[in-house]
């Protein structure tokens, strides 16, 4: 599966190794991994909510767009939801191409799009308080560099 939305932890090493092994003909694999960042005061947990159905649809479309824009052997997106703790893996993308430039660019594109176009929402808990993470203007602005 090239797009996965799941509650359970994934094995970064095994996913990367498996992805590289399947990317026949590629000379380059780029991976990016997002972790739950701690905050001042100490994060007690993060809950990621998503929109089942739309999430898979949006990620599949973003992946297809990357495959069409760059010469890629393959692209993988894994994104978790549910209860996470500081330091936990949230998501990963992997891209494979013949030479590294396409794999690097496509990985950045996937990240920029899934930050602001995939229906996930993060809720941070510090002590007994919880707050929804606000979208960042920088993330929205990052999309503009991919628009022709």
């Amino acid at each position, binding site marked *: 599966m090239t797009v996965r939305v799941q509650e359970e932890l994934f094995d970064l090493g095994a996913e990367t190794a498996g992805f590289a092994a399947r990317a026949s003909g590629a000379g380059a694999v780029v991976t990016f991994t*997002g972790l739950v960042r701690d905050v001042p005061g100490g994060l007690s947990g993060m809950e990621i*909510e998503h*929109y089942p*159905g*739309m999430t898979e*649809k*949006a990620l599949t479309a973003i992946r297809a767009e990357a495959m069409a824009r760059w010469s890629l052997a393959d692209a993988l997106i894994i*994104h978790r939801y549910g209860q996470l703790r500081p330091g936990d893996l*949230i*998501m990963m993308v992997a891209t494979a191409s013949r030479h590294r430039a396409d794999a690097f660019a496509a990985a950045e594109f996937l*990240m920029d799009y*899934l*930050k*602001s*176009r*995939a*229906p*996930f*929402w*993060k*809720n941070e808990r510090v002590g007994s308080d919880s707050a*929804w*993470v*606000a*979208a960042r203007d920088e*993330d*929205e602005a990052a999309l503009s560099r991919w628009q022709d």
Partner: protein
Amino acid sequence: MILDVLYFAWVRERIGLPRERIETKAPTVAALVAELAAREDRYAAAFADLSALRVALDQDLSDFDAPLSGVREVAFFPPMTGG
């Protein structure tokens, strides 16, 4: 028409439910929003600032001026924070 209306993140919390079925004649998303906001204070509070909201029609991102004809599922949520 009958619509499934879904709410996520703080929109869900403010309205107090994740989804509901609504019978409406609203021609556009904006008209549906006006209809919901007129119902009760909790809806009015959730829809007070449309610039802070996004809408999806049948699981595709859309706009508040989009028509609702043929649509089955409408979702309201804040800007997304994936990654």
